[in-house]
């Protein structure tokens, strides 16, 4: 008797087959890979120091001169260098915020879903309360009290956007905890923590992965909002959001200063969203989450 049973291809193989059919997701994955590489190697690719001023060379147009392929800004800083380094900042904030969001949301969701009872009621009403406030408003209130550093911005974004993740995880746990393998673990005497984190959490990995991808996109967008409003990443450190702030005074005369960081934000958000959509369809066709 052989131990292999009827399964023509592995689970990963099936997921990849479904993912590959999703053209936009493939494009999204390529864009995300490109952005991550450019952020990682920003110091290598950037033509010069992003904070280097050269007032003799202000408002250079893109493609006009090889020293500054995407032109210069109002202080003569190289736009390409600022975009690359700003991307580094924006993606760092996006990823750290995503990790915070997923960790908080998963912990609260699994606790509420598994323990149930008044703990569940309490946590879910807290989620409802948090969702009552627009996220930008929450961000600005907190940002007014917390000095803006990369870490504090990331944490603040992460801690104001975990609610959807906790709802997704809770719903998944409510379904999973009734399965016999959980009863089997209880019959063996497994502790609650073991059941929650060893038995249940790995089974909720697919929706968490999808939510994580989509959360990077929204965190990048959030960082741009608050940096644009001046509460986020502080000059001279470049981020796509504060590049937009600087550009708004010159929008009628030098539009590319706003268009370039705007396009970078759009590309990143779309890349992560398409990647997330593709992963969702590939991992779990049942699953739907509002962006």
């Amino acid at each position, binding site marked *: *008797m052989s*131990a*292999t*049973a*009827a*399964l023509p291809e592995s*689970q990963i193989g099936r997921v990849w087959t479904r993912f590959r059919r999703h053209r936009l997701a493939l494009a999204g994955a390529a864009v995300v890979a490109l952005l991550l590489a450019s952020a990682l190697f920003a110091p290598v690719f950037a033509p010069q120091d992003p904070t280097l001023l050269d007032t003799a060379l202000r408002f250079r147009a893109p493609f006009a001169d090889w020293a500054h392929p995407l032109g210069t800004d109002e202080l003569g800083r190289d736009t390409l260098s600022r975009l690359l380094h700003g991307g580094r900042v924006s993606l760092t904030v996006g990823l750290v915020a995503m990790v915070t969001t997923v960790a908080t949301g998963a912990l609260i969701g699994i606790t509420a879903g598994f323990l149930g009872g008044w703990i569940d009621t309490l946590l879910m009403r807290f989620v409802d309360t948090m969702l009552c406030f627009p996220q930008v408003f929450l961000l600005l209130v907190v940002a007014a009290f917390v000095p803006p550093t990369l870490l504090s911005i990331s944490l603040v974004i992460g801690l104001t956007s975990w609610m959807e993740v906790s709802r997704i995880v809770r719903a998944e746990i409510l379904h999973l905890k009734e*399965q*016999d*393998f959980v*009863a*089997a*673990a*209880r*019959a*063996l*005497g*497994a*502790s609650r923590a*073991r059941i929650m984190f*060893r*038995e249940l959490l*790995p*089974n909720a*990995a697919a929706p968490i992965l999808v939510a994580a991808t989509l959360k990077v996109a929204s965190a990048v967008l959030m960082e741009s909002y608050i940096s644009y409003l001046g509460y986020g990443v502080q000059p001279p450190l470049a981020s796509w959001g504060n590049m937009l702030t600087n550009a708004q005074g010159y929008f009628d005369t030098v539009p590319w200063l706003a268009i370039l960081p705007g396009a970078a934000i759009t590309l990143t958000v779309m890349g992560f969203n398409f990647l997330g959509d593709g992963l969702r369809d590939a991992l779990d066709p049942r699953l739907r989450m509002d962006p």
Partner: protein
Amino acid sequence: MAEALLKVAGLEVHFPLRSPFLQRRIGTVRAVDGVDLEVARGETLAIVGESGCGKTTTGKAILRLIDPTGGSIRFGGQEIAQHGTAALAPFRRRMQIVFQDPYASLNPRMTVGSILAAPFEIHRIGQARDRAERVAGLLRTVGLPPEAARRYPHEFSGGQRQRIGIARALALEPELIIGDEPVSALDVSIQAQIINLMKRLQAERGLAYIMISHNLAVVSHVADRVAVMYLGRVVETAPREQLFFNAQHPYTQALLSAVPEPVPGRRRSRQVLQGDVPSPARPPKGCHFHPRCPIAQARCAEEAPASRIIAPGHAVACHMVTP
């Protein structure tokens, strides 16, 4: 006979029924309503009954997977019905369960090796390095190759998965295994293999089984004694031969007459019950079976019959049965 391995008396599991919005208690589902059972070491007790009669809930309450609302559970001479998590820990090693659905009872994200190593990790048995050897030993015991440890549950057939479930139940060397319909989800050809495996393990290890089943053909193969449940109560308990050839309770007789006859064309008196099983949220007064009983009298609607012993090992809860 020394005290039985397991002695259940007056076991009750009542679930509150709550209103949708205010969560007020509006009723009680009497899933298990006063069950008495005894299991000796090394014997097999079968619990039979229709869907919804409370047999699975009884099994889960004995294992304390569901908290009983009343009654006593004595295991190895000790009362465990009210034990908390910590006090139950030593009993977890002595009682185990095999589930009906071999697809839902194994964690799809864990390899068979980690599923089978979990009992040793939870109870801190052995060193991490010799656990692989223990897992291989368990797999050999249930007739699977040791290489199976590296695979995931979805790579196995239903019968193979049920073998893995049995191996997990054996890991802690329990004295009692509760089989909750352990073969009813399997193909008929595979059922016999699993039953024979369980019988072999019983003979080798002196295991006691509680086999929960609605399949009387399976019960007639495995059981030493049989308890028949109807709507949360045990109506008749008897040694296997007694039950199959000398059933006294009218419900047991009806249940036996519903078993398909293996010889085509042969006719027997088929006793068809009228009506449906009442809801356990509103069980009938008196004997739970009286609204459907062919021989019910006025007394049956008023007074619940006590279980009376009419022959050695044969107990019946019916006013109309006289010793």
